[in-house]
């Protein structure tokens, strides 16, 4: 079941600068896009949803769990994919890296192996098990990072600019996989072309949600904002 995410009156500062300013939104659509200029607060907003950032004021609840007090439960529900997969890929081989996400799940060896294979198949990396993870291409590394998030079977997947470092073919490949998932997906992106298939787009500017609409309307508002 897809949980509802409630962001209520959230304000957050970084180094004295307000990066999120009284943000209130409820997310329950299957596909949500988040856009905005650099420094607009969208990446901080994404980190709120996984509990990586705890707001200075206000609350974030995922399926009823407050991220400030139930961080572990929230992270079991919300997977996260970063812009740079190099930071996310830790173990020396592909299968070992995917299995790392299950370390705290206390599963048997066979179940871990089965879930790793399922996750690799979901992202098209079947047969890559023993490949050195640091020798993969950029696109393959991002798919591996995606598999590392999906293997934990989260109900929500938050992706912070997952295609920024990828070429066109790999961008399409990653977005195709994201759109095919059963989970709720929140994608932060600068690539407006990838928003066609989302249900709703939030536009951030100066730490506030300045538009919250269907993709066409939200993108038009964003373009008008940028000038």
């Amino acid at each position, binding site marked *: 079941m897809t949980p509802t995410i409630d962001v209520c009156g959230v304000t957050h500062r970084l180094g004295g600068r307000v990066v999120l300013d009284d943000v209130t939104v409820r997310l329950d659509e299957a596909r949500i896009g988040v856009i905005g200029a650099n420094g607009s607060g969208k990446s901080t907003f994404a980190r709120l949803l*996984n509990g*990586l950032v705890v707001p200075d004021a206000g609350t974030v609840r995922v399926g009823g769990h407050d991220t400030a007090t139930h*961080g*572990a439960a929230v*992270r*079991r529900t919300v*997977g*996260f994919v*970063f812009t*740079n997969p*190099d*930071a*996310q890929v*830790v*173990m*020396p*081989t592909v299968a*070992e890296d995917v*299995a*790392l*996400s299950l*370390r*705290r799940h206390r599963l048997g060896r066979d179940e871990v192996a089965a879930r790793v294979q399922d996750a690799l198949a979901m992202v098209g990396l079947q047969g890559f098990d*023993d490949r*050195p993870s*640091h020798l993969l291409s950029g696109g393959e590394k991002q798919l591996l990072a995606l598999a*590392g*998030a999906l293997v*934990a079977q989260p109900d929500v997947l938050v992706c912070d600019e997952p295609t920024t470092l990828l070429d066109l073919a790999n961008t399409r490949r990653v977005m195709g996989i994201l759109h095919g998932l059963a989970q709720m997906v929140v994608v932060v992106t600068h690539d407006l072309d990838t928003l066609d298939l989302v249900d709703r787009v939030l536009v951030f500017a100066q730490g506030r949600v300045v538009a919250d609409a269907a993709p066409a309307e939200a993108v038009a508002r964003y373009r008008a904002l940028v000038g």
Partner: protein
Amino acid sequence: MRRPPAPGLYSPGESRLHRCGAGPKLLGLAVALTGLVLASSVAAVVVAAAAAVLGYAVAGVGWRVALAQVWPLRWFAVVLVVLQWWLAGPVAALVTVGSLVGAVALAGLVTVTTRVSEMLAVLGGMAAPLARVGVDPDRVGLVMALGIRAVPVVAGIAAEVREAHQARGLPPDPRTYAVPLVVRTLREADSVGEALAARGLDD
């Protein structure tokens, strides 16, 4: 000449050594290295070299992978041979450098035939008694995995900083080299910490 592959990487295979558990291999390595150090003789060096050659042949990983395990030692070994020869004679030089290269070759044989996750499981098991004093054995294993991962990552950052200097035509300067290296390494550590937290490994 093409450079050998990076040392210490698992090389997939189905050999007897690959199928052997990490525990027996680590135990065997500990016994072999202890024997090599205690014996400290030409005979021990010859036995270690023969064991390493036989081991790599059984593992079937190829001579390039085998060479890669000891390749980073080459300049150090040359300096050590010269010093030992000068200070203690040719036999001492052979024993010292032979023991060092033999030990690294045998350790490399274990790492190329054993997945890191298998080694961490063994090390985690060994650290299990520490749970009584509040040490998380899983975390001990994770720290070791991150340590192993850090070697090629920091080497990669160092290479990028060096290239950036060359691209800007800057002369070699330890200060302008060290500062970006340290800053980028710390930022990388922050990113990895955040990624591990996002994967629930910090809970």
